[in-house]
C-alpha cells in the first residue's frame, strides 16, 4: 500500500534559489547606475562621422549638443530635406544658437561655465556651410570649446 510515498529516494534535492534575486538585483543596480536615458529625440538624421584621433567627452554636464542633419522622414513634409539644426527638442536656425548657448550656460554651475564644451553632432554628408555658420555663431556666443562628434574609425590609414 503506497498511499503516502513520502520519501522518494531517487529525487534530487532542489537547488537553493534563494540567492538568485540578490544576484539579479546586483545586475539590476549596475544597469540602473550606468544607464543614461536618452535626453532628446532626434528629429534629424545623424549618421556619425568617423575619425581616429578622438577624445572622450568625460563630463557630460559640461557638454551642450547641437545636432545637424537632414530632417527625419516624418518631418520632411514640414521642414524639407535640406540639412537643419536641432537644438534640444526642436528645429532651429543659426540665429537661435546664441540664445541657446546662453541658456545652457546659465543652467550650469558658475564654476563650470568657463569649461563648457559644445559638441556638434553632424551627419557625415552634411555640407560644411551649415557647420561654418554654426561655428561663427558659437564664436559670437563666446563658446569656443568645440567638439566635432565622431566615432572611432577601425582601419588605420
Amino acid at each position, binding site marked *: 500500500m503506497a498511499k503516502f510515498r513520502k520519501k522518494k529516494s531517487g529525487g534530487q534535492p532542489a537547488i537553493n*534559489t*534563494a540567492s*538568485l*534575486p540578490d544576484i*539579479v*538585483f546586483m*545586475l*539590476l543596480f549596475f*544597469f*540602473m547606475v*550606468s*544607464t*543614461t*536615458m*536618452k535626453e532628446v529625440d532626434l528629429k534629424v538624421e545623424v549618421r556619425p*562621422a*568617423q*575619425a*581616429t*584621433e*578622438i*577624445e*572622450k*567627452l568625460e563630463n*557630460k554636464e559640461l*557638454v551642450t549638443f547641437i545636432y*545637424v542633419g537632414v530632417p527625419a522622414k516624418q518631418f520632411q513634409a514640414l521642414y524639407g530635406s535640406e540639412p537643419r539644426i536641432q537644438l534640444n527638442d526642436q528645429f532651429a536656425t543659426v540665429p537661435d544658437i546664441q540664445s541657446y548657448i546662453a541658456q545652457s550656460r546659465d543652467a550650469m554651475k558658475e564654476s563650470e561655465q568657463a569649461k563648457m*564644451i559644445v*559638441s556638434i553632432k*553632424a*551627419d*557625415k*554628408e*552634411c*555640407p*560644411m*556651410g551649415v*557647420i*561654418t555658420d554654426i*561655428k*561663427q555663431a*558659437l*564664436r*559670437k556666443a*563666446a*563658446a*569656443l*570649446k*568645440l*567638439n*566635432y*562628434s*565622431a*566615432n*572611432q574609425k577601425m582601419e588605420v*590609414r
Partner: protein
Amino acid sequence: MARKEVQEVNAGSMADIAFLLLIFFLVTTTMDSDTGLATLLPPDVEQEPDDTPPIKERNVFAVLLNSQNQLLVEGKPMRMEDLTEATKEFVENTANLENLPEKKLTEVPFFGMYEVSKGVISLRNDRGTEYQAYLMVQNELTRAYNELRQGLARRKFGKDYKELEDEERKAIRKIYPKRISEAEPKNVGGK
C-alpha cells in the same frame, strides 16, 4: 501533531520581478560615451587689427578643401593619406629648408633653449565640403601633431605623451603648438 511553522513569504517570484526590471534597463541603456575631435575656436573679434605683421609665406601651410572633397596642399593636389606626413614634415623642417617654416629659439622647461617652429596651418574649406571630409582633414592634422608630440615624449622622457605629468606635457605642447588657423568661410572652387 501538526508542526507549527512560521509561514515564509514566497520569494520565488522575486527573481521574476527583478529580471523584468533588469531587462527593462538593459534595453534602455545606452552605454556609448560620446567621443569626438576637440578643437578651439578663435575668439570673435569685431574687426581685424590692421597692425598685425604679415605672416611669411614660408611659415604658412595652406590646406584647401573644395566642394568635391579634393585636397589642395601648398598649391598641389594631395591624397588624404599623405596629409599627415606632409604636415609633420612642414612642422618639423628637420633639414632647415628655405621653403619650410622658420624656427625661433624659445626657452622651454625641461628642454632649455629649443628651436620652435613658427609654422601655421591655414585650413580653408568650401561651403559645399562634406562634413566627413572636413573631419578627416582635421583628423589628419591632429594626428600629425599627436605623433610629433608622442615622438618627442618618447625621446625625451621615455614615456608616452598620455602618461606624462602636466608640466611635461605643457612643455611639449609649447614645442609643438597646434596652430591651425581657419580662414573666414568663402567659396573655393566650383558652384
